[in-house]
Structures are given as C-alpha cells and as structure tokens.
C-alpha cells in the first residue's frame, strides 16, 4: 500500500512537472512595447483566412470578401489556397482599384473540401510581394450538422487575420519565389502560443480547433505550423479549485490542423478535467500560424471565434511569384 502511495506521489510530481514545462511557454506578453502580431481588425499586406470550406452540394460553403480599404492606392493581389493536403492552388493577379471589394463563394472557385487562403499584396511590375497595407477581409462559414464529426450546424462569420508590412520584402529580380519574413521587421510576427476558451465537450459537442500553418514553403508544399509541438494543457475554469490535464497530439497535420475535441483519443480526460465547472481553457503551442475555435450548434452556445494569442514567433513563408 505504501509503495503504491509512493508511486502515485511520484506520478503526481511528474505530472505537475510536465504541466509546468508546458505552461512556462504559454505566458502573456509583458512590458511597455509589445510586439504587434496580426489582427482581424486592422488592414494589412497579407491576409489569412484560416478556414475555407466548400462541397459540391454547397451545403458546406464559405463566402469570402476581400476589400481594398484605401481611397488612394490600388492593390494587386495573389491568392494562394492551401487545401489540407498542402498542395496549393493559385489564382494570380487580381487587381483592386481604391475602395474596391471582391466577394466569392468558395464553392465557385475551389473544387476542394477544406483548407485556408492566403492573400498577398504584390507589385504587378516586379512580381514581388510589397508593402501595401490596404487589404481587409471577412468570411461567412456554413457547415451542415455532423460536418465536424460531432455537433450541429455552423453559421457564423470571422475576419481574416491581417499582417501589416513594415517595409518591402527583399525580392531578387530573378527567381520564381519570394520570401515573406514574418519577423516583426518586414511583416508582423506569427502567433505560436494560443489559448482557447472551451466548454466541456459533453455539454457542447463538436467544438473544433482549426490552425493554418504559415511556416515553410507554399512552393514545395512543405508547410508546418499547424500542429502542436508540445503537450497541451486543458484547464478547468477553477470554480471548484484548480484542475488540469496535459494532453498530447492536440493538433496533428502539417499545413492545416483540425481537431474536433470530441474525437481526440483523450476525450475522457478532457471531459473529466472540465467536469468541475463545465468550461475552461485549452493552452497549446505550434510552430506558427493562425486559427479559429468553432463551436457548432447543439450545445447551448454556438459560433466562431479567433484563437487568442499569447506568444509570437519569427517564421518565413516561401511563396511562388506568379
């Protein structure tokens, strides 16, 4: 009996140690000059729509709007659609005059199921990405019941994450690709530490975390940043005392991560961790990307929210010059 107690204690200490290792990395920024990350409320030179879905029957679809919000400058944009197999589909050279917007349904343009969309302001003369912080974007998503593997339908909107360009990216005259340096010097840095406010899956089925990776090469299809890199922490709201669990492999994938929490192998532990209050937070780390939390109808509450960011990272994304 004594030996069992000892083992239990050792396991507890190990557990706590693992948790603190992970937690040490998910910390809010401090100081007087916070590094700016992307935002879904500002204009930028690069837009990322973390979730674009469509099917042939159009029961799942996304309505995307891209606007040139400047009243003075025109904008040339390239659109890179990255499906979840990471092999991008490119629509080159759209031109937006001042104050012009375009809107389209994903089902009309992309004959694929799901992925994400990157919009980059380009110089039409040099074919290089440029600093042109005039783009803003929004999307509405509709998904039928059961699309996420659990939960009801989804109908909500989100704004695209906008990355501000501080200068023109370095772009050699020759070459077929260009680098987007998300380093806080050329473009805003990329989120890498996230917190999602979730409900207990038993009470709100189908909650799904989506991440779109922005680290690697669109040209070669080797893009990372969507998968979690370390143990994630699910934490009860704490109404009845602190209670948390660490879970591994929260988000798998390379360019596109998607996890319907109900389908995670550790769903029992997640439900158990949140059983005290019925809600709490999920903290996780990736190699750089943006994301959404989708809560389908079926529980008491439904909608789409951007993931909260508590840490940023320098990453580079290579894109083809079309």
């Amino acid at each position: 009996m004594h030996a069992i107690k000892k083992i239990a204690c050792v396991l507890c200490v190990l557990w706590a140690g693992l948790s603190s290792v992970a937690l040490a990395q998910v910390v809010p920024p401090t100081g007087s000059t916070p590094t700016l990350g992307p935002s879904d409320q500002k204009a930028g030179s690069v837009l990322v729509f973390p979730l674009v879905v469509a099917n042939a029957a159009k029961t799942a679809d996304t309505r995307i709007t891209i606007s040139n919000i400047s009243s003075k400058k025109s904008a040339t944009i390239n659109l890179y659609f990255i499906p979840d197999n990471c092999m991008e589909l490119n629509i080159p050279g759209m031109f937006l005059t001042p104050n012009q917007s375009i809107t389209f349904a994903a089902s009309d343009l992309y004959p694929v199921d799901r992925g994400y969309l990157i919009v980059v302001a380009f110089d039409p003369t040099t074919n290089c990405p440029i600093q042109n912080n005039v783009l803003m974007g929004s999307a509405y998503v509709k998904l039928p019941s059961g699309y996420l593997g659990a939960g009801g339908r989804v109908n909500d909107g989100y704004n695209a994450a906008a990355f501000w360009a501080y200068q023109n990216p370095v772009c050699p005259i020759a070459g077929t690709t260009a680098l987007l340096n998300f380093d806080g010097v050329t473009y805003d840095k990329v989120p890498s530490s996230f917190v999602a406010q979730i409900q207990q899956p038993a009470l709100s089925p189908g909650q799904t975390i989506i991440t779109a990776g922005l680290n690697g090469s669109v040209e070669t299809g080797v893009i990372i940043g969507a998968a979690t890199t370390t143990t994630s922490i699910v934490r009860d709201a704490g109404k009845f005392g602190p209670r948390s669990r660490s879970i591994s492999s929260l988000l798998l994938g390379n360019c596109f991560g998607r996890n319907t929490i109900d389908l995670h192998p550790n769903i029992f532990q997640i439900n158990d961790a949140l059983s005290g209050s019925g809600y709490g937070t999920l903290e996780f780390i990736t190699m750089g990307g943006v994301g959404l939390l989708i809560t389908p109808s079926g529980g008491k509450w439904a909608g789409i929210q951007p993931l909260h960011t508590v840490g940023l990272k320098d990453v580079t994304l290579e894109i083809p010059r079309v």
Partner: protein
Amino acid sequence: MKNLLKLIIMLCAMMASVAVSAQPEPVNIPLSDQRAGAILVFPYYSSSMINPATHDTRMTISNVSDTQQIVHLLMIDSQLCEEQDIFICLNKRQSCELLASDIDPDVKDGYLIAVAVDATTGCPVNKNVLIGGAFLKMPANTLHSSAGAVSGAYTAEAFYAKQPIAAADCDGITAVIRFDGTYYDQVGKYLATDIQAPSVIPGQTIVTVGLDGDISLGDIHGASQSATGLVYNSIERLASFSRFLIGNCMAKGVITDTSPKVVYRLNKFLSGGQNFGTMKIPIGAGVGLFIVPENTKGWSGIRPMHKLTPHPGATLVVPVFAPTGVCPVP
C-alpha cells in the same frame, strides 16, 4: 442650360473629391480582440429573464497568467448609460463565466468593461493578463423587427496597458484611463465593414460603444457617428450618409433600404453586381460589432468592426473602490 449642366458636373466632382480626400488611410492599430490585455470590452450583450434559453449572452473572462488578478466589471446599460459594477477574483489561469441573464437580467442592449485593478487600492493596473470571449443568441425580431434570430460568437477587445497609470490619475474615488497609446491602446475612430444589400440579408446591424467620458456620472460618449459616413458599391461608386449611428454610450444602426439614407436608396445602390458594398463610418471614440442575423442565404454571424484609424486620446473615467475581501487570502 449647357452652362448649368457644366456647373452641376463640376460641383459633383468637387463634392466627390472632398469626400475622398477626407478619408483617412489605414494605420497599424494595436488594439485587438486576439491578445491579452489589462482592459477588456465586450461591445454587446442582451438578455431576457423570461426566455434565457433563446435570448442571452455568455461572457467568459480568463486570467492567462500565473498570478492572481482582481477584475472590476462595469456593466453599462445603453438606455440611460447607467453603470453597475462588481469585482471578480481570478486566481492564476482561472476563468469566469458570466451570463447576462444572471448578472444583468432583461437588459436589451448593454456592454461590459473589465478592468484589471490593484487588490488594495482598486486602481487600474498594467497587468495584461485578461482574455475574453462571448456567445450571443437572440430570437427572431428581437434585434430588429425584420431581423432573423441571432446566434454567433465574438472575442472581447483587449486594451494593452503599456505602463502603470499616473498616481494623479487615481484618487481613490475615480481613475482616468487614458486610451492614448502611451498608457493604454487607443480606441477606434474610423470603422469599416463590408455589408450586403438589406433586401438580400435583412436586419444587418452595426453596434458601437463609446469609450470616452465619465462612467461614474453616466456621461459616456463616442458611439455616435461623428461625420459623414461612406458606402461603396461593388463598382466603387460612392454614396455618403449621415445620422446612421445615433446614441451616447451605445449606438445601434440597422441597415435597411432607407437607413443609412443614400441616393437611389441602399438596395438599388448596392444592386449592381453582387449586392454588396463596403461601409466606412467615423465615430467619436469606441469599438463595435457587425451583427448579421440568420437568413435564407446562410451567411450570418457576428464580426468585429475593422478599424482604419484610432482616436488620438480618448479618456474614460471609471469609479474606484477598494476591492476588500474579493480574493481569499492566499
């Protein structure tokens, strides 16, 4: 007659150029709903005691740090701009769920400001550890007589505090929060959103909340439209409008054929191409949401308003109390 026509054309060109030249270019606004901050603003909540199952708002505030934090919650009713407040104690990594039907029942339109405060004095502190999210649901015909049901989510606006507030700005009775970019992030001034023709999507609503003035006196402003607003259709034709967003602490504008009132009326103006356009609205000083009720097209939800430019220096006076006994002694 020919001269008269020429004069009219010249006047039109002048008016258009004045409208265009008055428009600001977008700037890199730090204010965001995706990061942690020392002040959170939930721009809209609504509740019904009779039917909370279909009409309510669920707001969640989390402390993402490893230290305890006291939060002063200020709830503002849009009708009289009255405030009511309460403190909550968030231990490390703790979250707190607030149902509007519970904390402020039967309020049609309200907004919530959450301020990280000092445990002893109650003065605002520069602890950028708060994040927030909300779910909103409303039955059909509640947001507006022609609107469908509302169901969606948003995340709270988070204002980053760059330094502690000046000692002179907190006298133990009130505190002055300076949204000037030196102490706290600046608030929005020129907002924008894309809209669809109201004949296609009825009941689209813009809600703005003011963050300038004195909460302790109920004298809060900044939500109203402060100058001419503009709407562009899909072929970049411009129409201007006024008096669309009217209010003090909160303004709510429902988009209909006649509101905002533009030449040709809005449905006809947006009818070219794909029945959509972009709206730009200057307000006093605040933040806002764009709410699209459920509709036959399936494109509905809640999104934050884009911010093109910030207000240079709005100030908000908030009441201060010592939060005695709010947090259990560690």
